[in-house]
């Protein structure tokens, strides 16, 4: 058949089935939207970090990195440029800062660079003025940041708090999206190098030197840089930041990937359910075409065009809907990661996300449209409709249709043990993954989903048998009809139940693990604030981890004189790039009580570890870090600090809520290894009976507004950490809620459509004396059974999924997970989906039950 004829046939058929096709398109679109939005969310954070990195480094391939915030002597740049094979070398100063303006404040990354950085061609600086403007320093900021802090006019001044210093900087230029593209949402302040050094009080210092070697000379240049570094600086590729970020964001990315997989499955089932609505009509078309002499190949062509057009419209609609969803609900939130990485909340829509979503949608359309493939290929042209035909004699030999259905049932019955065995094997595989290979958690989850889909039909059969048996003890035809109808339309029933099951499974598993993680992180935050009454640290959002050093000056004495303050301890902390991890180094004062957070210890003796840490030369490492360096308690290792220093391992802890890992040492050891006495915070111990909030106000007043330091009570700091954790994890809750909502809509719509298509049969039951109310009850019972079986199975395996994820979070990323069984979450999701879908369905169910009985006589 020519393409023009195929199109014509499609057009004339469309008139009679527009409503069904529209529903199928909506279902398909919903599935594609879920998949697309979750893909965007999964890729946005990493892409945002990668864009910033490449926007700065341009064509540079190597970099010489300082190991702490104080950077390295700028004179090193001259020596780097002298290395044979170096084409270009550009200095860069990066510092955490807090930008303030008349409208508000925002934590930013201060980037200082000179014109040589432009030569590397990075998108961020290509069109930015990096030379001092007539000797006057000024800053360049992205347009959204300028609006947020209210510094938008040329020459308007912003205040910058950097490392306990406060300075002002006039605005030279706002960067637009046209100039820096997707980096527009990244919180950065760009300044000429000398001015940035002045603002950060780091004269003559740079954080890194970017190096572009001549072609073919990279290895030679790297070797020369290593010699220059003398083990005190890091020599890495310019993609190092991306690697560090990937490691830090691994947990978040894995959870989003998991959601993407579950969203994809729910979306696929949604689309598949919708497409099943049109199967009857397509079966009739197949029979008509085959009867008219069309060969199977031509019939497949007709159906593929159906799939193509349906898929195309559904995918376009789905992409638009998914785009909106990702804007409204799926916004990436870097949470804690923003304390150590400059990440924008840019929404990055990659070609890969579009391709995956479209592929998923088209696959659903093709699979659903070609579901009667066996009938198309059958020798019997009318196999697709299998019309009832007179078969045997009075004693009743089976007719052809009955024979076929009977053999299908026989196959189904024979398949049950196989299905049960495979389902049990899949569960066993998930359990083995949980116990022996927690790193393969996603594979374990996929195995559980597989088990769910394999076992669901068996569960449905079992529940239907049980219902039928129970109904025999009751008077009333409603349960008998409901069971009979569900058995009659088993394929669709299983598809609907599977939609609810997968959604509830995903929601319970991930929400449960999310809550356990949240509790664990709250415990960690409480522990990490237990040894102080007040925190005094550089102002800005970067104070969450207390890693920004500042000059001690006369502040210490001033603080110790504030009424209510019993003593002041010097806390030091930092971020140390160790291998592929940006490790959080925590260094409380020697007299901190407790110096090792008791609930975070996973190996070793707490009292002994505390004694050893206080004695000096000992450190506590998180489990993954210790394992990566093959360390056991008591063994020695060298911490790659600015001054590489030997420590012995006192105990092994969780990651204290920081995914890449943590190290705990005493503050004095930190000063030795970092070759700096600068604190990153003060711990103020309060006299007994002192009100922390009053003390906070007194300390803030003593410091004055120009100090660049902020004061928080321990409780406030813990609450801030909890808030950020919750915000970072909130996306998981939002997506889980959305998946549940999609499941409610999908199951309600599919069940509603199933009921609506059955109106002639309901009309026939009216002829038998069934009242509308009874028919309505029948419809609701059918749907209730389906949803309950699906959601209960999903909830049950979801609890197992939660344990699997908990173990992976605890064992692989070492999060301080408080393990529990998310029964309330499971029951909540089960009740929500079932009740909401039934509520939505009740209206079409009621209308279907009011079907005119005359319909029964109009075949």
């Amino acid at each position, binding site marked *: 058949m020519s393409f023009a004829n195929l199109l014509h046939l499609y057009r004339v058929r469309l008139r009679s089935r527009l409503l069904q096709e529209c529903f199928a398109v909506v279902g398909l679109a919903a599935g594609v939207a879920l998949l697309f939005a979750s893909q965007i969310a999964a890729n946005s954070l990493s892409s945002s970090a990668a864009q910033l990195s490449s926007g700065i480094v341009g064509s540079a391939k190597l970099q010489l990195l300082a190991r702490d915030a104080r950077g390295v002597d700028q004179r090193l740049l001259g020596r780097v440029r002298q290395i044979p094979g170096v084409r270009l070398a550009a200095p860069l100063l990066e510092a955490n800062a807090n930008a303030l303006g008349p409208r508000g404040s925002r934590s930013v990354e201060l980037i200082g660079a000179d014109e040589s950085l432009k030569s590397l061609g990075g998108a961020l600086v290509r069109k930015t003025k990096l030379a001092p403007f007539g000797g006057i320093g000024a800053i360049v900021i992205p347009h959204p940041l300028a609006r947020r802090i209210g510094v938008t006019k040329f020459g308007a001044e912003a205040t910058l708090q950097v490392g306990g210093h406060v300075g002002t900087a006039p605005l030279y230029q706002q960067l637009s999206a046209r100039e820096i593209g997707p980096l527009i949402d990244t919180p950065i302040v760009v300044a000429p190098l000398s001015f940035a050094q002045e603002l950060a009080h780091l004269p003559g210092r740079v954080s890194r030197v970017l190096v572009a070697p001549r072609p073919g000379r990279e290895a030679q240049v790297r070797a020369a840089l290593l010699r220059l570094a003398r083990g005190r600086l890091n020599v890495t590729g310019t993609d190092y930041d991306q690697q560090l970020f990937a490691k830090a964001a691994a947990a978040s990315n894995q959870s989003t990937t998991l959601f993407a997989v579950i969203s994809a499955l729910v979306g696929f089932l949604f689309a598949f359910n919708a497409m099943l609505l049109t199967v009857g009509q397509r079966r009739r078309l197949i029979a008509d075409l085959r009867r008219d002499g069309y060969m199977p190949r031509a019939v497949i062509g007709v159906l593929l065009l159906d799939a193509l057009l349906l898929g195309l419209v559904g995918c376009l609609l789905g992409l638009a809907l998914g785009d909106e969803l990702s804007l409204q609900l799926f916004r990436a939130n870097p949470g804690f990661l923003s304390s150590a990485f400059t990440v924008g909340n840019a929404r990055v829509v990659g070609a890969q996300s579009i391709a995956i979503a479209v592929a998923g949608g088209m696959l659903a359309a093709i699979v659903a449209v070609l579901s009667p493939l066996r009938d198309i290929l059958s020798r019997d042209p009318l196999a697709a409709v299998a019309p009832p035909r007179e078969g045997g004699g009075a004693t009743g030999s*089976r007719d052809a249709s009955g024979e076929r259905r009977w053999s299908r049932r026989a196959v189904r019955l024979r398949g049950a043990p196989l299905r049960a065995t495979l389902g049990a094997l899949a569960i066993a595989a998930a359990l083995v993954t949980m116990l022996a290979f927690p790193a393969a958690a996603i594979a374990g989850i996929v195995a559980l989903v597989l088990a769910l889909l394999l076992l669901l039909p068996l569960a449905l059969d079992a529940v239907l048998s049980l219902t039928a048996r129970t109904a025999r003890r009751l008077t009333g035809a409603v349960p008998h009809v409901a069971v009979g109808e569900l058995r009659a339309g088993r394929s669709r029933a299983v598809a609907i139940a599977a939609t609810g099951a997968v959604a509830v499974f995903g929601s319970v598993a991930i929400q449960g693990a999310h809550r356990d993680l949240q509790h664990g992180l709250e415990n960690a935050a409480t522990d990490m604030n237990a040894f102080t009454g007040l925190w005094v640290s550089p102002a800005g959002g970067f104070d969450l981890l207390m890693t920004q050093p500042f000059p001690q000056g006369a502040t210490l004495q001033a603080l110790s004189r504030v009424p209510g303050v019993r003593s002041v301890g010097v806390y030091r902390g930092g971020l140390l790039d160790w291998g592929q991890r940006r490790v959080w180094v925590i260094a409380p004062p020697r007299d901190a009580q407790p110096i090792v957070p008791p609930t975070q210890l996973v190996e070793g003796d707490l009292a002994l570890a505390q004694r050893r840490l206080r004695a000096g030369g000992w450190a506590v490492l998180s489990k993954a870090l210790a394992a990566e360096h093959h360390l056991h308690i008591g063994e020695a290792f060298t911490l790659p600090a600015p001054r590489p220093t030997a420590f012995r391992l006192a105990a092994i802890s969780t990651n204290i809520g920081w995914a890449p890992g943590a190290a705990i040492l005493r503050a004095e050891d930190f000063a030795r290894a970092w070759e700096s006495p600068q604190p990153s915070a003060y711990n103020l111990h309060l006299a007994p009976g002192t009100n922390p909030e009053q003390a906070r106000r007194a300390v803030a007043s003593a410091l004055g507004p120009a100090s660049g330091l902020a004061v928080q009570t321990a409780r406030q700091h813990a609450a801030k950490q909890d808030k950020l954790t919750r915000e970072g994890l909130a996306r998981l809750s939002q997506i889980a809620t959305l998946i549940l909502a999609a499941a409610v809509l999908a199951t309600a719509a599919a069940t509603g459509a199933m009921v609506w298509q059955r109106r002639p049969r309901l009309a026939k039951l009216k002829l038998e004396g069934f009242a509308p109310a009874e028919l309505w009850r029948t419809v609701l019972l059918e749907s209730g059974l389906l949803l309950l079986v699906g959601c209960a199975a999903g909830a049950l395996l979801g609890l197992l999924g939660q344990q699997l994820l908990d173990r992976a979070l605890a064992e692989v990323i070492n999060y301080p997970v408080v393990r529990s069984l998310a029964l309330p979450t499971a029951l909540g999701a089960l009740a929500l989906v079932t009740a909401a879908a039934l509520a939505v369905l009740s209206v079409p169910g009621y209308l279907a039950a009011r079907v005119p009985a005359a319909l029964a006589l109009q075949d």
Partner: protein
Amino acid sequence: MLELRELVKHYELLGGETVRAVDGVSLSVPAGEMLALYGPSGSGKTTLLLMIAALLQPTSGQVLVDNRDVSRLSEREASDYRLSQLGFIRQNFDLLPGVSAIDNAVLKLLKTTPWREAHRRVAPLLERLGLGGRLQQRSETLSMGERQRVMIARALSTEPRLLLADEPTGSLDSQRSQEVLALLRELSRERDVAVVLVSHDPLAARYADRVLALRDGRLGEYQPAEAPPPLESAR
């Protein structure tokens, strides 16, 4: 048993035209009689059946079943009437697939009777209809004739006084049609049930006690287009 008095059903079309689907039909069918009603498509047969089944309200006139006018019943009363006093047999077999013959046959009775008791009461009826050996067979494995007999068993399961049969032989070949018609006549006499059989099948006239024709909504004499085969060859 059944009495129709000046039964009228008119429909107003959008253009203001009135369709007289049933136009002053009066007839009575005593218990134990089988009445065959012929008529071309659009003659009002289905409308008449719907009114007798209390599924459609007449424009005027009465439908008396055991001297009770069923044309003005409430929805619940009408359902009860169809359940307890009426049996409906159709040419399409409304059997639940995947469900056994006997479970399909008891479906209507289950509304008022426990499952075990319903089975006990319907099993002999199915045996009487020649399905004794196939009670547990799933409906999709039954032949068309067997399915029609399951439908008859379902219709008779509540021991109705009135049986409406709408083209009951429409899907059957001639041999199976004759079997079903003979069965209906036997059951009508045996159980003292009034049967109104609406059909196009000329065979039906041979088995009916009385034959009428419906044309343009009015009752009239039946004029057979062709002579039906002799009764003996059908048995």
